[in-house]
């Protein structure tokens, strides 16, 4: 006869928690010698539980992706686990043979990656790539594999799955490619799904759909999901539990509500504080004279086309008009392909507009040529997105900063003198002048990029996704710097971004772009609190973590 105590114990166990699908115990992963720290992952333990999404959050270099790759046995050659266990069922993945581990991949657990653009083989049809999962494990006939591929594509909600199955990856959009990746991961119905920043490369509306899909599939199939992200908005949207990583260690772990609402660790608090709030202040309209006036700007791209075939015409910038007041920050927001970057490039004349007027302080820059353009374009400068690619790796910082002024006739001594002043202005040590870009971190490089834009003493600065490549805490610092410089130097700023949170924080007015057109333009406060256009509304609704934030604000 069972004692009541035993029954109760069993019952409570059932309600408490299911057996973990995977158990990571004291995992340690060593970095190669000469890295900035010895261990990429340092004594990390967590459970992956069926029916639960565990978000692992951290900034770049925190070791979050390493943990995921270790589970899949996909660590780079020079990086190896040196301690701990990864238990899946009763097997420790770290002690398995290559063959046993290979057999578990795809079958016991599957993974989706950050870049759907590059995660699929460009030379293989979608159906073949999905069919490969079955082939790898010797399952089904070739015919059945293809049929299953179409079924899976249907299941992940790809429009016209039959057609998509026959397509090559480049014929699909980013969101569709990520759905293909998910279909592939689901093929053998693994109990564990590892998602490494799966929505980071996607537009905000697509991101919302993919998050929904992952949520839906995870519930339906009772999978354990390990979801890696740097974005607390995404965490709020999808997580059941959260683990925060810093320098290879888990500094805090708990339920999503506990961690987001009552963060215990300083680092977690700092990260959460660094997220731009999704509310624009009501700002006084800037009454100054316009410094930049854009009227009826058009830019089309022609692709393909030859003697016989007609090419495709893309209207990247379609009749765009706006004015920028002296000292104002105008945001241009939109998804990829909306034409926001093309507008920026037309303004600084990295692109030649087809038609329209770009008046900078009364002078039309749109069709200026040769020496005149060279002289005038210093008045409008650009800060680029990628701090790694936008600085010449073979030039010292001093040269990067003085090249522009010297080209405009400033003597070398003065230009270098000014360069060291600029470095201090952007919060770097003046000794940076003799160093090369690779000696700096991403955030520092972006400061150098800002200094370079300032070197020519422009009246207008175009910042094209200037903080998008940066970690959230670094992003906050760079945004502060921009705000500070703007106030001190009385700059007018065109701030191009896909990130509505950032736009809300820094912009006086915002222009929302879709398919080359400005669909709505108004004060930031109005855009967020009373969006007129349906597209603007859909953008704002898609921002991850929005509901939680609204609840926190009202409650």
């Amino acid at each position: 006869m069972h004692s009541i105590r035993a029954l109760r114990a069993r019952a409570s166990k059932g309600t408490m928690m299911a057996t973990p699908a995977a158990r990571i115990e004291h995992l340690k992963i060593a970095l190669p010698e000469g890295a900035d720290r010895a261990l990429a992952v340092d004594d990390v333990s967590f459970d992956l539980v069926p029916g639960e999404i565990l978000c692992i959050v951290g900034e770049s270099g925190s070791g979050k992706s390493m943990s995921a790759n270790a589970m899949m046995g996909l660590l780079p050659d020079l990086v190896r686990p040196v301690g701990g266990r990864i238990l899946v069922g009763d097997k420790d993945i770290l002690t398995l043979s290559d063959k046993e581990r290979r057999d578990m991949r795809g079958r016991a657990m599957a993974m989706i990656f950050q870049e759907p653009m590059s995660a699929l083989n460009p030379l293989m049809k979608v159906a073949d790539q999905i069919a490969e999962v079955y082939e790898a494990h010797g399952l089904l006939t070739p015919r059945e594999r293809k049929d299953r591929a179409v079924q899976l594509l249907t299941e992940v909600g790809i429009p016209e799955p039959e057609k998509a199955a026959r397509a090559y990856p480049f014929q699909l959009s980013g969101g569709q490619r990520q759905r293909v990746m998910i279909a592939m991961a689901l093929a053998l119905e693994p109990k564990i799904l590892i998602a490494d920043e799966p929505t980071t490369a996607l537009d905000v509306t697509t991101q919302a759909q993919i998050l929904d899909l992952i949520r839906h599939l995870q519930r339906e199939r009772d999978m354990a999901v390990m979801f890696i992200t740097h974005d607390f908005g995404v965490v709020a949207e999808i997580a059941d539990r959260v683990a925060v990583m810093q320098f290879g260690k888990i500094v805090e772990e708990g339920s999503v509500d506990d961690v987001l609402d009552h963060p215990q660790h300083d680092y977690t608090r700092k990260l959460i504080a660094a997220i731009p709030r999704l509310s624009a202040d009501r700002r006084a309209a800037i009454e100054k004279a316009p410094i930049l006036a854009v009227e009826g700007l058009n830019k089309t791209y022609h692709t393909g086309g030859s003697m016989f075939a007609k090419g495709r015409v893309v209207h990247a910038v379609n009749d765009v008009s706006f004015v920028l007041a002296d000292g104002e920050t105008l945001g241009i927001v939109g998804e990829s392909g909306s034409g926001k970057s093309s507008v920026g490039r037309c303004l600084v004349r990295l692109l030649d507009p087809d038609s329209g007027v770009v008046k900078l302080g009364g002078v039309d820059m749109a069709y200026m040529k040769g020496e005149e353009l060279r002289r005038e374009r210093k008045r409008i400068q650009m800060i680029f997105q990628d701090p790694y690619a936008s600085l010449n790796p073979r030039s010292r910082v001093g040269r990067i900063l003085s090249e522009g002024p010297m080209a405009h006739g400033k003597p070398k001594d003065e230009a270098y003198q000014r360069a060291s002043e600029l470095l201090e202005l952007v919060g770097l040590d003046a000794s940076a002048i003799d160093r090369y870009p690779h000696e700096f971190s991403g955030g520092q490089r972006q400061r150098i990029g800002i200094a370079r834009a300032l070197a020519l003493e422009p009246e207008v600065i175009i910042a094209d996704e200037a903080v998008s490549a940066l970690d959230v805490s670094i992003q906050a610092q760079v945004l502060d710097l921009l705000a500070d410089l703007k106030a001190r130097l009385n700059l007018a700023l065109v701030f191009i971004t896909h990130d509505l949170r950032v736009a809300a924080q820094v912009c006086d007015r915002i222009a929302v772009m879709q398919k080359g057109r400005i669909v709505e333009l108004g004060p930031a406060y109005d855009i967020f609190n009373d969006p007129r256009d349906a597209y603007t509304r859909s953008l704002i609704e898609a921002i991850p973590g929005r509901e939680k934030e609204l609840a926190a604000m009202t409650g």
Partner: protein
Amino acid sequence: MVRFIISRLIKAAILLLAILTLNFLLIHAAPGDPAAVMAGEAGAADEEFIRQLRERFGLDKPLITQLGIYLGGVLQGDLGFSYRQQVPVADLIFDRLPATLLLTMTAFVIALTLGTLAGVLASARVGKWSDTFISTAALLFYATPLFWVALMAVLVFSVHLNWLPAFGFETVGSGYTGFDRALDVARHLVLPAVTLGLFFMAVYMRMTRASMLEVSQLDFVKTARAKGLKNSIIQRRHIFRNAMLPVVTLAGLQAGQLVGGAVLTETVFAWPGIGRLMFEALQQRDYNLLLGVFFVSAAMVLLFNLITDILYRVVDPRIRVA
């Protein structure tokens, strides 16, 4: 695809005429003309004799008229007459072309297959001694002057070992026919083709190796591993196919170039090909023959470029469909 090919052929024809014109003008810009050289060789370099020769070759007419006459001839399929050899240029060239094509294409196939194979092997063992060995060996063949390798090969395999004939296209006066003749030509082909092939192999080896290593770092390779695919399948299906794209480009450029570029090999092995014909024509200032050879090699380059582009479309769907 048909449209693409037609469009490319038209472009190629226009380009070919432009190349011909440029070659024509360049050759005539060089000092010394065939009349002077012939007169000099005849030991009778007096003005009158040279004038007569010039008149006979049509060299006394204005350059633009000469060009017009020449291009007009080419458009009608007439590459002109070699006054030095007293034979139509086309006959000379088509007499030599098969030998050259046989040599260079064999060498090309050797270079491409051995090169990619070695490149794949080296990339699979990157950093290990076999990688170093393959890379060094390939580089050695590339760095050593071609004629020296050729001479050494003759010394070892013909003179000392007496395995293979040292020079020529076939055994003169042997009277072989049919299969025996083919075998004889094949034996003559081995040394020049392998020498030339080994030289170009290095390029394919380096390129394949670098390309394989680059592709193996790409995300989709990680995806393939995450599926649980075997390494051999990943190497072949995912890495190799993608890594071949730049190699195809290079091979196309080189295949065309090889036709006109085997001068050294043909000279050392006394191979009766276009390369030697060109060399002789150059020495003798045989303008029409030289232009004819240039025309054929330019046509070959364009042809192989077209083949490359077609191949590229077959291999890479992004170019085919987009």
